[in-house]
């Protein structure tokens, strides 16, 4: 038995489709060059590094740097703590939303909480944390009269990251809980189990793989996070910040490369466990839509404490966000609150090149977003609808990008492109240009876009595209006249997500940006570092406004021009 002829024919058919072949070749080149190559060069650098010749010398050197070994334990400690807290809080929110009858106000709060992380720049919570609870914090100093409170360090990072990442867990658990068939739990109730007992003996065990999944996802996000530890970490360095300082402070590029390899190994290992062990299992146990609506808990003794607790939590998060635009209006944060002033906004545009910063950030993101959205749709189309040899490669590499922390990618780009490809000078022109920033934006948003594209395409019956192909359309026509129109909504939201992610990106970008480009996020980071909270807040407020506007625009667009709803039911 040999599949030789079939495989050969498949290949021949593929080759008869030049657009498809070109696309695949370009994609493979792009992914290899901008994801695999920078990571490979990190490995090469850290093993050859200082003396030339293959050795562990760089690794043994960095492991002798005490700040680095401390950073490893710090990172893991923070990741672990944040993983637990964010998972627990996310689960609580999801449980209350799915199981407990809520009033309109609480429901609205929940919606806001689930939306905030989408539009917020990464370090907004760190900023407001310092402004509310720091030495000169409104709450600590003026309400509680504590004069020497320090938010910098371990707990600062943990609180801020937990608040940043728990909405993601919340959304994950909401999906899982909704899929649990209520009759399972009703059966247990019926046999006399208390509500708490039902949760511990039925719901919780069903959720276990999902909990593991949420924990690891948060863990990875936490140890990859650069912005928050940078601003609120103080002397408490994590791997991401240590790597950054190793490059910008100690100018030790080989050392930074080796550190990046260490960080990458940690996230990669977690990612593999998460992706291949837990993700599959967490959905496998809970497939199928719930057959009936769930009886919501109306019992006051359960409802009131849970709803109140969550609403307070949600209000706290909302307050943290509101604090930023308000902070931009105070004359001097922590000392002089009145009268409110627009001077920081004015300064942003007059003294601190605000216009240029917004123009640069906006333009680069605006260029990156459509490319990202289109690329991720093309990748999803190839992965879901076509079969060819290198498909597994394309899928794996674009998912791999999800496990690569921005800082690691940044170091990889510095090492990989500053001296040209393999330090030969080839493609050297790329380094320091806007193009490389755009490419980083694209690579950083590609996995999310691809994932939602794949989910959208899986919903479309394979035979719809096949029928078009059968009628005489080539791959290009099938993609443009059938696939894209059918996933217009997913494409649009991919576009906006890519835009928002790009304009709020910092971790990789901060290592690669040249003075020629002023980026908003880099500005915010700089002013926050210097303690100019008024300016940082003013920049951040405008950034939030832009991202919120983009999301609003997208929703409007989908509402009026969206297609999916119209023919979802068509068979």
């Amino acid at each position, binding site marked *: 038995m040999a599949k030789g002829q079939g495989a050969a024919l498949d290949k021949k058919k593929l080759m008869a489709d030049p657009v498809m072949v070109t696309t695949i070749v370009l994609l493979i080149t792009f992914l290899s060059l901008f994801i695999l190559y920078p990571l490979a060069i990190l490995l090469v650098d850290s093993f050859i590094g200082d003396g030339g010749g293959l050795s562990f010398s760089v690794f043994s050197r960095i492991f002798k740097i005490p700040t680095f070994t401390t950073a490893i334990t710090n990172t893991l400690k923070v990741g672990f703590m944040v993983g637990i807290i964010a998972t627990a809080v996310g689960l609580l929110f999801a449980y209350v939303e799915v199981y407990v009858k809520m009033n309109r106000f609480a429901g609205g709060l929940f919606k806001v909480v689930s939306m905030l992380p989408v539009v917020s720049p990464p370090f907004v919570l760190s900023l407001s944390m310092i402004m509310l609870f720091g030495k000169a914090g409104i709450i600590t100093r003026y309400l509680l009269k504590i004069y020497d409170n320090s938010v910098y360090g371990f707990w600062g990072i943990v609180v801020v990251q937990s608040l940043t990442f728990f909405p993601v867990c919340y959304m994950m658990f909401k999906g899982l809980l909704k899929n649990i068939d209520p009759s399972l739990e009703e059966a247990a109730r019926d046999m006399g189990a208390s509500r708490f007992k039902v949760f511990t003996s039925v719901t919780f065990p069903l959720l276990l793989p999902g909990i593991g999944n949420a924990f690891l996802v948060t863990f990875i996000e936490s140890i990859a996070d650069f912005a928050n530890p940078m601003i609120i970490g103080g002397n408490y360095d994590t791997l991401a910040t240590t790597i950054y300082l190793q490059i910008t402070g100690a100018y030790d590029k080989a050392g930074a490369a080796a550190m990046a390899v260490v960080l990458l190994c940690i996230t990669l290992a977690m990612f593999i466990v998460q992706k291949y062990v837990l993700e599959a299992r967490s959905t496998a146990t809970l497939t199928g839509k719930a057959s009936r609506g769930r009886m919501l808990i109306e019992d006051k003794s359960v409802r009131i404490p849970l709803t109140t607790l969550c609403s307070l939590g949600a209000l706290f998060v909302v307050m943290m966000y509101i604090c930023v635009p308000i902070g931009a209006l105070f004359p001097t944060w922590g000392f002089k609150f009145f009268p409110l002033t627009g001077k920081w906004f004015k300064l942003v545009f007059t003294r601190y090149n605000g216009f240029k910063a917004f123009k640069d950030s906006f333009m680069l993101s605006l260029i990156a977003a459509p490319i990202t959205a289109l690329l991720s749709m093309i990748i999803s189309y190839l992965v879901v609808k076509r079969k060819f040899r290198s498909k597994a490669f394309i899928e794996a590499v674009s998912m791999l990008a999800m496990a690569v922390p921005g800082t690691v990618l940044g170091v990889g780009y510095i090492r990989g492109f500053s001296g040209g490809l393999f330090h030969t000078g080839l493609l050297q022109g790329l380094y320091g240009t806007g193009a490389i920033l755009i490419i980083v934006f694209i690579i950083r948003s590609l996995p999310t876009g691809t994932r939602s594209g794949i989910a959208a395409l899986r919903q479309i019956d394979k035979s719809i595209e096949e029928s078009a192909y*059968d009628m005489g359309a080539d791959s290009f026509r099938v993609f443009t006249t059938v696939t894209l129109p059918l996933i217009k909504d997913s494409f649009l939201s991919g576009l906006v997500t890519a835009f928002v992610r790009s304009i709020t990106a910092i971790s990789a970008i901060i290592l690669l940006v040249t003075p020629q480009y002023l980026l908003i996020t880099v500005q915010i980071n700089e002013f926050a570092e210097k303690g100019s909270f008024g300016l940082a807040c003013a920049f951040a407020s405008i950034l939030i406004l832009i991202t919120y506007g983009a999301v609003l625009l997208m929703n409007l667009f989908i509402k009026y021009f969206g297609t999916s709803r119209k023919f979802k039911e068509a068979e």
Partner: protein
Amino acid sequence: MEKIKKGVRLEHISKIYTDPKTKNDFYAVKDTSITIDPGTFVTLLGPSGCGKTTTLRMIAGFESPDEGEIYLGDEPINSLTPNKRDTAMVFQSYALLPHYNIFDNVAYGLKLRKLPKEEIRDRVLKILDLVELTGMETRMTNQLSGGQQQRVALARALVIEPSVLLFDEPLSNLDAKLRVQMRTEIRRIQQEVGITAIYVTHDQSEAMAISDNIIIMDKGVVAQMGTPHQIYYNPVNEFVADFIGEANFLRGTMKGIEGNLAIMELNGQRFKVEYHEGMEEGRQYTAVLRPEASCLSDDKGVSCKVVLSCFMGSYQNYHVMVGDSLVRLEEYNPKNKKIYKVGDQCRLDFDPASVHVLPC
């Protein structure tokens, strides 16, 4: 539609798949050779998983055969992509393009061929008239009933005037009544256009009703190909006999010849069947007995015992044991006949000419 009609020829076609669980390769279709004459309506019939869809998809070009060559007319088409093949497929799920209206769905293939606008319009309207959907051009696909969607799918395939029409269980999403109506419709249109059609189904009455030829498939191989008549009356093996209509099997040893009849023996009882060239005395044969071609009587035929007797309105349904073989039969118009009860000993009678014999 002045076009030279083309037939389809499969020569030693095989398709190998890998079982996703065990990772073992297996033949989904094995060494299949079929010749389909131009202008005929041929049905691929067989139980679930026997490789019908796979065969059809290889003809359409979605799958590539691992062995053998497929010809359209005299042209080998193995290496052609689906969009370059002169075939059009009607899918089980209809696969209409949900973002286009009916007119645009039907016009899709013609637009790809860059025909002038007026010609596209003329041809689409003509085809929509043929499938009786005139006036529905501007509706969206989800504003049609299942049967109407099916007609659009058919119109869309017909309008590009392919050499061969392919159907993959096109009616399985419709209710029973509409299914009967649509199959007649499909047959009418096929004959009007005179196109070659290959039709996949696992519904035997559908196959009998519309085909010029039926191909019975079993576990990836062709078990028999012939007209509905040939397949019903001269099945080549027990599988085919059992799959088409109901069949009872009586195993016996041939004892002698009497004129043009052969004498068989089963548990010491003798019965007669039609003699075929090549039957040998002393060998075992299986007699294929159709339920409608046998009856119970008090004195004629082989002795048997009634184990089930059930009034069904238009017929009386019996199960009887002949030795240790179960025979099911239907006696029509039972009002004027003697009704046997469970436990009765009686005789099973049949016309030797309507019994088909298979070698064991």
